[in-house]
């Protein structure tokens, strides 16, 4: 049976330092997984590995049964990525940023899709304004729209809650509730447990816990992170 993500013994080293070691992870289609852990735990590294931005140094990593880095170009057609920085083009308008993303992904009915998503994230009125003029929260919302635009089977979101106000957080919750497969990271422990159905805790590059979100006690997770 096909799974969204299968990682076996995956590791990534930067020079002499291993940011991830011996990571075993399986994510089925339709699951919402939160990656939790302290700073430097390797959450972003794992996400970047899945987004084909990095090659694994060790282990076997597959997305939709496609091996990385071998089938990286095919994997890219299946993912929607939101990085640490929104990564938008500051001198293009909101509409143009989405348009570009759609053209690169081969999205059909692009004009309609852009309109739909701009409205969804509450940026329809600002569609003709340059992203340079947007606040951090607005940029984050646009970047989220861009990640969802091509309707990707797998979403990889690095701190999607960063910079969002209460309305933005509601929007995020709404977006995530759609039944898509999502892997997200967050620094906000309770929020992560609330947004996801399953939580994986990373500490110093290794998986220390992997359980349904409801089953994890926030205090226990804090203790692991502080250890």
């Amino acid at each position, binding site marked *: 049976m096909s799974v969204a993500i299968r990682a076996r*013994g995956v590791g990534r*080293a*930067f*020079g*002499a*330092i*291993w940011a991830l070691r*011996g990571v075993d992870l399986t994510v089925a289609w339709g699951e919402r997984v939160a990656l939790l852990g302290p700073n430097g735990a390797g959450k972003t590294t794992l996400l970047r590995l899945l987004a084909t931005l990095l090659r694994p140094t*060790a282990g076997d990593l597959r997305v939709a049964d496609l091996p990385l880095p071998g089938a990286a170009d095919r994997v890219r057609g299946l993912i929607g990525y939101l990085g640490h920085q929104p990564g938008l083009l500051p001198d293009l308008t909101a509409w143009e940023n989405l348009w570009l993303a759609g053209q690169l992904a081969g999205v059909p009915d692009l004009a309609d899709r852009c309109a739909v998503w701009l409205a969804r994230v509450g940026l329809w009125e600002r569609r003709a304004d340059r992203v340079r003029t947007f606040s951090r929260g607005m940029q984050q919302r646009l970047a989220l729209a861009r990640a969802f635009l091509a309707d990707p089977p797998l979403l990889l979101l690095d701190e999607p809650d960063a910079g969002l106000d209460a309305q933005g957080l509601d929007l995020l919750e709404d977006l995530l509730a759609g039944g898509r497969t999502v892997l997200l990271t967050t620094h906000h422990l309770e929020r992560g447990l609330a947004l996801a159905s399953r939580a994986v805790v990373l500490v110093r590059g290794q998986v220390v816990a992997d359980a349904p979100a409801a089953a994890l006690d926030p205090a226990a997770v804090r203790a692991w992170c502080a250890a």
Partner: protein
Amino acid sequence: MAQTLSRPTASARAPGGGLALFTTLAGAAGAVTMTLALYGIFVLAPTERTQGVVQRVFYIHVPLAWTAYLAFGVVFVGSLLYLLRRRRRWDVLARSSAEVGVVLTTLVIVSGSLWGKAVWGTWWTWDARLTSTLVLWFIYVAYLMLRAYVGDPDRAARYSAVLGIVGFLDIPIIHMSVIWWRTLHPEPVVLRSEGPALPPEMLWVLLMSLVAMTCLYLSLLGLKLGIETLREDLRARRSPPAGQ
């Protein structure tokens, strides 16, 4: 967290017997052939009519140049294989050969300059070969600078591999453009299109010297490979293996 040294993994071994043997053999062969070559250069080779004794620099300058090109050819092969296979050993080969190659190229330039001073009276002439060699020197010095300025070792290996490939493939074009541009240098005696125009005694000494210089290159390369392999081994030992 204290660093613990672990057992070396298969891909990072201290310089084994193979490399040490190679280096020793190359060094020994180099000592023998260099002695023979020097004898040939100063005793056996006839004095050239127009340039006199100074012309003997030719037997050092030209083989050094050929060996430098050999070194950069090895850089090309190492770079190509690194990008294709991503094994550290190819990067070690490329960067070691690049360093030795820069040394050899420097010697080519210096010997060429000395020759020029003795024959034409100036410390520098913009003749074709010297100019091409200077450009070559700049390319591979850029290679070394690139490695120095890039922080991450994997990225440094990748970037310099790209430069190693681009630089080497550029060499024939640089040659052609420089030769068209300037014709001050006396016709390259050995590399003329009609075939070697050297009398046999000179040709033999030149070939002897070429063998000697190649042995010199190989022994220097062997030494450098040993150092770099140790460095890689140390780096591998510093980081614990993945998975355990």
